[in-house]
C-alpha cells in the first residue's frame, strides 16, 4: 500500500469505511473547477471533525469544507484539494429557545429545514435570510460565504 492511500485508510479508521468516498468517478462530482479531491469524508459528529482535522494537519493534507455545493460558482480556485469535508451529516438543531428568540444548529443543516422547523414552532418565526438555493444551501455554507441574495 503506497503512502498516498495509507492516509485515506487512516481516515476510514477514524469515521468508518462507509463515510469515506474514494471512487474516482464519484470524486469527479466533487471537483472544484476541474480539480478533484483525493477523498471525501462525511463525519457524523463535531468530535469526528476534530479528529479528522487533527489527522489532516499532522499529514499536511489540504481540507475544503463543503455543504451542498450551491456556491461552486463563487469564491476562488483552490491550489490543491486532498480532502473534502462534507458537513451534511452534521445537521441537528441543538437548541431552540423560542421565548428568547434563539436557535443553535449544526453547520450541515439546510436553510429549508431550519425554516420549516421555525414556522411550525410556537407562534411561528423565521430566519431572515434568503440566499440562492434556499432548499439546499446549508447554514455553514451561508455563513462561510456570507451570502445574502443574488
Amino acid at each position, binding site marked *: 500500500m503506497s503512502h498516498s492511500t495509507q492516509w485515506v485508510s487512516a481516515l476510514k479508521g477514524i469515521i468508518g469505511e462507509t463515510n469515506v468516498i474514494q471512487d474516482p468517478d464519484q470524486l469527479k462530482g466533487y471537483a472544484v473547477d476541474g480539480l478533484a479531491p483525493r477523498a471525501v469524508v462525511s463525519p457524523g459528529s463535531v468530535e469526528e471533525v476534530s479528529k479528522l482535522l487533527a489527522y489532516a494537519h499532522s499529514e499536511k493534507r489540504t481540507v475544503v469544507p463543503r455543504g451542498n455545493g450551491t456556491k461552486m460558482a463563487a469564491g476562488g480556485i483552490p491550489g490543491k484539494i486532498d480532502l473534502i469535508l462534507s458537513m451534511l451529516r452534521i445537521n441537528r438543531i441543538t437548541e431552540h*429557545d423560542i*421565548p*428568547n*428568540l434563539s436557535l443553535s444548529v449544526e453547520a450541515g443543516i439546510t436553510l429549508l429545514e431550519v425554516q420549516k422547523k421555525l414556522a411550525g414552532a410556537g*407562534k411561528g*418565526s423565521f430566519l431572515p435570510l434568503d440566499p440562492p438555493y434556499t432548499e439546499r444551501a446549508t447554514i455553514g455554507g451561508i455563513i462561510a460565504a*456570507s451570502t*445574502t441574495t443574488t
Partner: protein
Amino acid sequence: MEKDKMISELVRLVGKENVLCSDMHLKLYEYDASLIRSKPDCIVCPTSTEQVSKVVKFAHDHKIPVIARGSGTNLSGGSVAVRGGIAIVLTRMNRILEMDIENLRVVVQPGVVTLDLKNVLARHGYLYQPDPASEKVTTIGGNFGENSGGPHCLKYGVTSNHVLGVELVLYDGQVVEVGGKALDNPGYDLMGVLGGSEGTLGIVTQAVLRIMPKAEAVKTMLCIFNSIEDGGNTVTAIIGEGIIPATLEMMDNLTIKAVEEAYHVGFPTDAAAILIIELDGLKDGMERLTERILAICRQHNVREIRVAKDQAERDKIWAGRKGAFGAVGRLRPNYLVNDGTVPRTRLPETLAKVVEIGKKYKLPIANVFHAGDGNLHPLILFDERDKDELTRVHAAAMEIMKLCVDMGGTISGEHGIGVEKIQGMSFIFSASDIAAMKKVKAAFDPENMFNPGKVLPETEKAA
C-alpha cells in the same frame, strides 16, 4: 526609557501643547468609571492620525505600553493604565469628517462625543442609533472599543452593528483600513474582531458609521408594577408576542426612589418596578401596537400606565432612566456597576437571586437594566473607605457574574471585560477558547504593548 527623555521625545513628536505629564494630570487620568486606579507615565493628546502613528511607533521602538482613551466613562477598567505607559487620549480628534446622508453613512474621528454627533444628525432628520447612558460625554472611539450598548440596542443592536469600517493604527505605527462603507466587505471580517477589543489590538483613528432616518413616530410608555415578577413577565410576554419594541427598560424600587429624589421626574417611590417601553416606526399601526402592549401589561397586573403625550414628557421619562446611575451614586459614597446578561425568560428568577446575594453580603443593591436584552445592571452600593465592605463588594460582584453564567447567560452585556471581569472569562470560555483569542491578540500586537493586562487572563485556567 527614562521618563524625562520619553517626555521630550513625545513633545518633539506631537508638540508641547499635546503632552500632559504633571502629577495632577497623571492623577486625573488614573481612573475610569470602575474602581480600578493606576497612573499612566505620560498623557498624549494627538490631533491627527499621523501623530497617533508616530507615538505608537515610538512606544513600540522603546517597548512602552500604550493605552487609547476617550472620555474614560468605561466601566470595567478598560482605559486604566495598569502597567503605566503612554495614555493616548483621543478627545482632541473630534471632527465629523464626512456626512454622506444619502448613503446613510458618516465618517468621524474617534474623539467625537456620541451625543454631539446625534445632535448634528438630528438637524438633517437622521440619527446614529447606539445610545449608551453616558452619551453626553462618551466618545465614538470608546463606544467601539467597549462595544457599548444602550436602551435602544434591543431593536437596533450594539455599537459594532453600526460601525462599518475604521482606520486603524497597528502596533508598529502602520495605518490600515478595515471594513468600509459597504455592509459586507470582502475578505476577513476584522471589524468583528476589533469591536469591543478594548484597545488591545490597535488604535482607531477614524470610523465609518451607519446612520438611519429618524422614525416617523415614537411612543414612550411608563408602566408601573407592584412586583418585579410582574414586570419581568411582561417583558417576556411582549417579546413572546413577536413584538420587538425599541426599548424595554426596567428599574427596581431602590433605583426608582433614588431617581425621584434626585430628579423629581414623577416616578412613584412605592413602586416595585418601572418599565419604560418605547416604540418607534411608522405612524400607521403605532396605536394598534401600543394597545397590544398595554393589554399585555394589564394581563400582568400593571398598576398604572402613563403614555408620554409629547416630547417634553418623553424627555422627562428618559431623564429618569439616563440619570439613574448618577442618582444611585447619591445614596452611598461608591457603587460598583455589574453588567451581566441572562436569557430574558430567566430575568425574574435571576433578580430574586441578586437580592439574596445582597442580603448575604449585607450590601444594598439597586437594579437598572435593559430588560428586553436580559441585560442586568446591579449597582452595589458601598463606601470604599470600609475595607471589609470593599472585600464583600468584590465577592458579591463575582457571585453575580457566576449567577448569570449559571442561568445560561454571560459575564458582560455591554461594559466590556477590562480588568474587573478578567477572572470571569474562565466561567464562559475553555482554555482552548482563550488560547484561540490569544492568537488573535498576538497577530495584532506581538509584543503585548496595546493596553496590556486587559480582556484576556494571563494564564489559561479551564472553566
